[in-house]
């Protein structure tokens, strides 16, 4: 966990007091909506279809158990008893009252939580690998760099009014669990051929109506230069990004129109003028940030304790869950446990207040009081003793977060869609629910192997449909909901955008279409361990297209 200091606490307290005054003036009419809207958005407050929505930042997806309890409190006291974890590792509450928001924010600030920069044209919550610090395949904890960027870019006066929002992801693992390539700026920590650890920097990724993957503009950047280089990128974007057309305002359009090479050269020119100035990183500063990340006092344990093997043998459900939701940890004898927030037939990413409290308790007992949020809208207990897994399973199973469907067809990423969102033009959650019900037989789902479905209720693509193995985009035609289907997208280290397979299909047909695609895959794959995405890469989209549209 990262330990916040007095500066952070004072900042949050002042921010709450400021927002309380703004809300008070709005409620009396002293501020009109035009004046107030940008102020509330700066604090993560949106007005959705039925109510205000509060989005709370969870920096690099790391939550302490007391913070999770505070989220449960806010869900109960100010909302309707549940929250929704998002693809930006944040949480949203859907039914907050404006008049009560300052009190909710004050309560959140007590637990070091806030909604700053979860909306508006600024640098948004910086995301990373939900396994950061514990993943066996990472070279060092990427959260130190995410925290450095968070500190530098929080309320940064020069970058509080960018042409459009700006999303950064940081990862340090060989397998990309942070969807780097779909970010405005990607920072990948790696060791180069000379044995030095530094960053590969990409820019211009993003989905929405004009999807692009990042282009690498700096193959290797020394650690000391991270802040100055990011500053140079943001300056270029701030100066040349389009402000005349919201659809062309993201950095991806600037990079595309200028060309990545030219953009990189311009950044370099800017960077040269600042790289040796105040932003050059002193190793002592990095060491200070690193020192504020407290790691568990791990016991010296052996992998695969006998009790675990015995429990697997005694309980088939437990064994199935271990195979699906438990992953290797960098420390012997420990495990990473993923909590599925995708129970069959329920809204993806939703979590009840009682579940939040229970998860906090389980984290206290079994995960050094730490919880992570992943962009797939699941949670993680990052430090579980392997010997504790049977007890952890029973506890998670009792609260409905042990469905062994992680990474499978029913582990669907979905935006809130038209059930909540004022921008949406079709529903996403009920589509996800119907698909998960269709594949409720976990033997069938396991038989399909890793298969990611992403659903967005509009072209803004909050459900990341472009990079779903199967992507589903809701559109509206003459008052009816239709869904465009893409296949072959992926958000990992081999990121690519999916290919549209044909005309949009009606709402009721979507589960059938997914089933047709799944069936085609089973017939086309060369062997049972050829993944869905690999089959598409080998055979292309045509056989799937033929299957789906043969009878439609």
């Amino acid at each position, binding site marked *: 966990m990262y330990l916040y200091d007095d500066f952070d606490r004072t900042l949050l307290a002042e921010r709450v007091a400021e927002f309380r005054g703004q809300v008070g003036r*709005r*409620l*009396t*009419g002293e501020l*009109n*909506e035009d004046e107030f809207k940008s102020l509330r958005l700066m604090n993560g407050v949106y*007005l*959705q*279809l*039925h*109510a*205000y929505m509060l989005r709370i930042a969870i920096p690099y997806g790391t939550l302490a158990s007391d913070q999770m309890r505070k989220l449960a409190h806010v869900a109960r006291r100010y909302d*309707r*008893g*549940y929250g929704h974890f998002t693809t930006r590792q944040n949480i949203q509450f859907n039914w*907050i*009252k*404006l*008049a009560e928001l300052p009190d909710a924010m004050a309560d959140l600030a007590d637990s070091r939580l806030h909604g700053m920069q979860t909306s508006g044209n600024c640098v948004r919550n910086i995301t990373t690998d939900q396994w950061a610090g514990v993943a066996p395949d990472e070279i060092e904890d990427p959260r130190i760099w995410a925290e450095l960027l968070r500190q530098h870019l929080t309320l940064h006066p020069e970058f509080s009014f960018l042409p459009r929002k700006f999303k950064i992801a940081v990862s340090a693992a060989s397998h990309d669990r942070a969807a780097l390539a779909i970010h405005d700026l990607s920072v990948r920590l790696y060791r180069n051929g000379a044995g030095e650890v530094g960053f590969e920097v990409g820019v211009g990724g993003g989905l929405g109506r004009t999807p692009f993957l990042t282009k690498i503009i700096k193959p290797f950047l020394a650690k000391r230069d991270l802040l100055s280089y990011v500053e140079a990128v943001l300056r270029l974007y701030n100066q040349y990004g389009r402000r005349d057309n919201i659809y062309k305002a993201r950095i991806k359009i600037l990079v595309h129109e200028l060309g990545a090479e030219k953009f990189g050269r311009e950044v370099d020119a800017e960077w040269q003028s600042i790289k040796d100035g105040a932003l050059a990183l002193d190793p002592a500063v990095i060491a200070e940030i690193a020192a504020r990340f407290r790691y568990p006092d791990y016991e010296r344990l052996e992998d695969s304790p006998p009790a675990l093997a015995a429990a697997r043998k005694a309980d088939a459900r437990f064994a199935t869950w271990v195979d699906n939701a438990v992953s290797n940890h960098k420390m012997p004898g420990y495990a990473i446990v993923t909590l599925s927030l995708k*129970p069959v037939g*329920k*809204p993806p990413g*939703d979590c*009840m207040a*009682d*579940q939040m409290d*229970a998860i906090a308790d389980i984290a206290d007992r079994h995960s050094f009081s730490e919880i992570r949020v992943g962009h797939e809208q699941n949670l993680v207990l990052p430090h579980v003793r392997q010997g504790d897994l049977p007890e952890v399973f029973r506890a998670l199973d*009792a*609260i*409905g977060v042990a469905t062994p469907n992680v990474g499978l067809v029913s582990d669907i990423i979905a935006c809130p869609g*038209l*059930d*909540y969102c*004022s*921008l*949406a*033009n079709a*529903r996403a*959650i*009920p589509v996800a*629910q119907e698909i998960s019900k269709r594949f409720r037989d976990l033997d069938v789902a396991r038989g399909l192997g890793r298969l990611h479905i992403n659903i967005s209720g*509009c*072209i803004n693509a909050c459900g990341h449909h472009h990079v779903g193995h199967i992507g589903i985009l809701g559109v*509206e035609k003459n*008052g009816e*909901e239709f869904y465009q289907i893409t296949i072959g997208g992926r958000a990992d280290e081999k990121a690519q955008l999916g290919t549209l397979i044909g005309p949009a299909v009606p709402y009721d047909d979507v589960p059938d279409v997914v089933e047709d695609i799944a069936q085609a895959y089973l017939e086309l794959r060369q062997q049972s361990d050829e993944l869905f995405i690999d089959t598409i890469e080998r055979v292309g989209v045509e056989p799937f297209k033929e299957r789906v549209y043969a009878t439609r």
Partner: protein
Amino acid sequence: MTSPLQQKLKISGSSVVTANRLADGAVVYRTAEGTWTTDIDSAAVVSSAEAATSLLTAAKADGVQAVDVYVAPVKLKDGRILPANLREAIRLRGPTIELPITFGI
């Protein structure tokens, strides 16, 4: 999608003026008396662009009670006022999904 708030005023049938209540965001409808109600059946129904513009202008002038004011299509059936599209139906009746209260432990 173009938000209804950004669309030019076009009326092709019966319409009401709707908004979100400032204090809590609840969906409200403009009445003929110049007040706001959560009961769509109490909303003022207009059927011409001129009448809609007049109702909308008055509603927008009230910037304290309600926000994001716009004209929404409705259908009239058996003396009831019904939303004419899915978005408005969801605004009136709430999410089409079962809210996750049944997750309980």
